[in-house]
């Protein structure tokens, strides 16, 4: 009677030779996808106001206002350059004031790009002011 063939013993070990290669590939992936750069910008809590509120504020108290119209920058209705605006805002010493006195109205009329608007907002914010956006009426 022929003997039954001996069963071949299979190696039951999990092949781990390539584990480190896989792990290093994952590391390379994470190194490449990680963003190490930090965001830069400014923070602003915006109280919004419509045109009528703005008018009331302008008559009751002398709330400073920055206007952007036709590509020009105006501070309290007078045309200024960005550097002059910075200086004028710093002169107001908004950082030392509190509450409503810190508010600076920002009004844009017509077509205004975000770059111009952003620079005005950044200048107000850097001077310690609180930006209040005046939305154009319908």
């Amino acid at each position, binding site marked *: 009677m022929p003997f039954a063939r001996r069963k071949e013993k299979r190696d039951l070990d999990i092949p781990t030779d390539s584990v480190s290669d896989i792990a290093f590939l994952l590391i390379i992936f994470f190194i490449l996808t990680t963003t190490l750069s930090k965001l830069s910008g400014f*923070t602003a809590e915006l109280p919004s106001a419509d045109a009528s509120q703005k008018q009331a504020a302008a008559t009751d108290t002398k709330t400073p206002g920055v206007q952007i119209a036709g590509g020009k920058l105006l501070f309290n209705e007078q045309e200024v350059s960005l550097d002059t605006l910075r200086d004028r805002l710093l002169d107001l010493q908004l950082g030392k004031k509190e509450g409503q006195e810190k508010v600076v109205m920002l009004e844009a009329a017509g077509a205004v790009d975000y770059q111009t608007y*952003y620079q005005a907002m950044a200048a107000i914010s850097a001077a310690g002011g609180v930006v209040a956006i005046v939305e154009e009426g319908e």
Partner: protein
Amino acid sequence: MKLPKTRRVTPAVPLASMGDIAFLLTIFFILTSNFAKDDTRKIKPPTARELEQMEKQNVSVSIDSDGGMFFNGRPVASPATIEAGVAGFLTGKKDPKDRMVVFRCDQGVDKKVFEPVLAAISKAGGVIAAVGESSQPPARN
């Protein structure tokens, strides 16, 4: 005289723990990574002098160069949707640091597009963290 045999040490690098080290590094990178929610390829940020470093936040709103609006990386149709989304995220948060909303907008976008979005974030109780790039001050003579 019989000289003692010198044992030769084979110069093999122990590689057994290499996999463990690699996986520890992988876990470190997984935990410290911040996956970008927004596709910022179509956003050219504005520049200004007076910028400071900000911490990353969980809520983000972006507007690309085509005027497309995104809330946490997902396209949205109107500022009203952004307002509802931001309000939902900020429920129960009172500290201004917790109410930060990262706002990215292309520098060429018109006021008609970005102003309602800013107003929507504001109405929802968000503190706007407007992202930009720092520009060097011009040299003074």
